[in-house]
């Protein structure tokens, strides 16, 4: 059990690529923290530096009270689950799970007991004599997790462990991982590019882009109060709608087909161009002439069952509204959409910072 502290962490490769830039993270004991971001954002590199598989260019990583910068992976008391599972193909499931214990000189009976416990926890006790190639994807995934938990490490590291599974199994394993974490009460750092995984698994989520941390916070905090346009667009599916508006002296934000009163805090920005962000669920079909609202034409209708997604264009941008499935809306219908004034986001057009 340990907290993980990352201070001013940098990674620069020999070819000059600066993969991780000044990352600071404070991960609390027993916390499940998810690093999320598009590919190449430095999340995996950060994780590999914590694991000791990648050298640190500058900065400091602490696990518990120890600075681990120069410790080899074996001495960091961590376990890692890899995307391709990395099961040892020539060993049985039992030997795969026992390898870490054997390397650390555990007694044979103790090793067998721990492996069986972990196998039971994961429901793979009947597979212990099999070789990895005789297992399905989901079973391999479980073995990989089992191999990590037998050692009771201080920190679990997960590197996109679910991305090789099919969609259904991924949802199932996601829940199982969450349950497992609650049971084991071990600090976990989890890397994924899937924001749904990040939101469902993470006690806190770290959004990264271009090697920098964009925002760290609880899932709903990221969703409700994104720090910048990138986070706003990355978290949430379908993504937040963005449209460029100009703020008039009267405190009215305006773009083609849309006019609305901006909140008090934005007034000072009059005369500037800003980006307005609206989540799809902050839009609904307007009742009569309620304000603020705007008229538009539906492009594409995506009936998903529990909701309907309406795609349309306004102010030169493609936008999506999430509406009640009871509504009968067809493509090319003219509709009027109302915005929830409490749920508008404004971003600086140049820096993308939230205002």
């Amino acid at each position, binding site marked *: 059990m340990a907290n993980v502290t990352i201070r001013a962490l940098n990674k620069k490769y020999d070819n000059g690529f600066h993969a991780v830039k000044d990352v600071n993270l404070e991960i609390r004991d027993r916390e499940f923290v998810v690093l999320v971001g598009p590919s190449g954002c430095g999340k995996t590199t950060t994780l590999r530096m914590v694991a000791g598989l990648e050298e640190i260019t500058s900065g400091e990583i602490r696990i518990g009270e120890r600075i681990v910068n120069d410790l080899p992976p074996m001495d960091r008391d961590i376990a890692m689950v890899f995307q391709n599972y990395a*099961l040892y*193909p020539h060993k049985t499931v039992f030997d795969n799970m026992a390898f870490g214990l054997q390397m650390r000189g555990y007694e044979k009976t103790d090793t067998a007991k721990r492996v069986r416990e972990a196998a039971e926890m994961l429901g793979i006790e009947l597979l212990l004599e099999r070789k*990895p190639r005789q297992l399905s994807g989901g079973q391999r995934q479980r073995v990989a997790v089992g*191999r990590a938990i037998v050692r009771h490490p201080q920190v679990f590291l997960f590197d996109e462990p679910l991305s090789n599974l099919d969609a259904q199994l991924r949802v199932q394993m996601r829940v199982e991982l969450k349950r497992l974490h609650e049971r084991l009460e071990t600090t976990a750092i989890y890397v994924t590019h899937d924001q749904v995984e990040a939101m469902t698994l993470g006690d806190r989520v770290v959004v990264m882009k271009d090697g920098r941390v964009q925002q760290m916070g609880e899932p709903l905090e990221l969703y409700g109060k994104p720090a910048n346009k990138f986070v706003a667009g990355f978290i949430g599916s379908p993504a937040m709608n963005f449209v460029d508006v100009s703020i008039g002296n009267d405190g009215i934000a305006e773009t083609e087909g849309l006019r609305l009163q901006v909140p008090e805090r934005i007034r000072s920005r009059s005369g500037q161009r800003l980006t307005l962000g609206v989540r799809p669920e902050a839009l609904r079909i307007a009742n009569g002439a309620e304000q603020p609202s705007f008229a538009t034409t539906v492009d594409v209708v995506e009936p998903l069952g529990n909701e309907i997604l309406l795609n349309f264009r306004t102010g030169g941008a493609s936008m999506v509204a999430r509406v009640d499935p009871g509504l009968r809306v067809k493509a090319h219908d003219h509709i009027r959409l109302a915005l929830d004034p409490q749920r508008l986001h404004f971003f600086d057009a140049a820096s993308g910072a939230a205002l």
Partner: protein
Amino acid sequence: MLIERKWKKWLYFYLPMAAFIVFTLFPFYWMAVTAFRPDAELYATWRQPNAAPLWTLHPTFEHVIGLMKTTAFPTWMWNTMAIAIVSTAISLVCGMFAGYALARLKFRGSEFLGTAIFITYLVPQTLLFIPLADIVRDLRLGNTPWALMLTYPTFLIPFCTWLLMGYFKTIPKELEECARIDGATRFGAMVRIIFPVAIPGILSAGIFAFTLSWNEFIYALVFMASADTKTVPVGVVSELIRGDIFFWGQLMAGALLGSVPVALVYSFFVEYYVTGLTGSVKG
């Protein structure tokens, strides 16, 4: 094209295949027939009545027995076997470590080193034997098996290194990363995880190396002088061709017996050998 006409399959597949098989196997067949053909038939002209150049009706073991009794053939076999095994073992061990290092470790000049090793493999033996002969003489190894056991690795190590480097590259590096997190050192991960996983590649490198040293001719010819230190390829050619007389029966019997061990090695490991060449581990 699921439904194909039968004659097309015969024309485009079986016929060329048959021609290829005949082409490759005929020398072996000729060798076998000659080895068991009595001298009277061997040296008779094909134009005489009842001549049957493609088979014999009076098979005999006289050449095989003569080979065993009148020449040092059993000693040559033993020499060849010992030399091939030792030089293969040396080359495999060196090749495994070098191949792993070139495939996995990032160090200054690793790419240059890889290329340099490959280039040494390209230097023809017919050039290399001259300086090597000098070294063998200086070390007083001439006419001892060590002359070959230590010179064969000069071309076997680059070969094994390259073959194994390619194989190691196909093994996901997460395997050893995981082993290192599990508590193994880099060396431990290599020995406990990577080498066992690479067994198909190591075996095929070994088979190749074994065959190459078994068949090697020029070093064996140059470094070995007396009849009882020779290897099969050299012994057969130098002792069974005297002046302009070819002892065809014994020559072919020697060649036939000499190729048996190689054929056995191949047939035992053929499955590994194929996966070794096509590479890769799954899962």
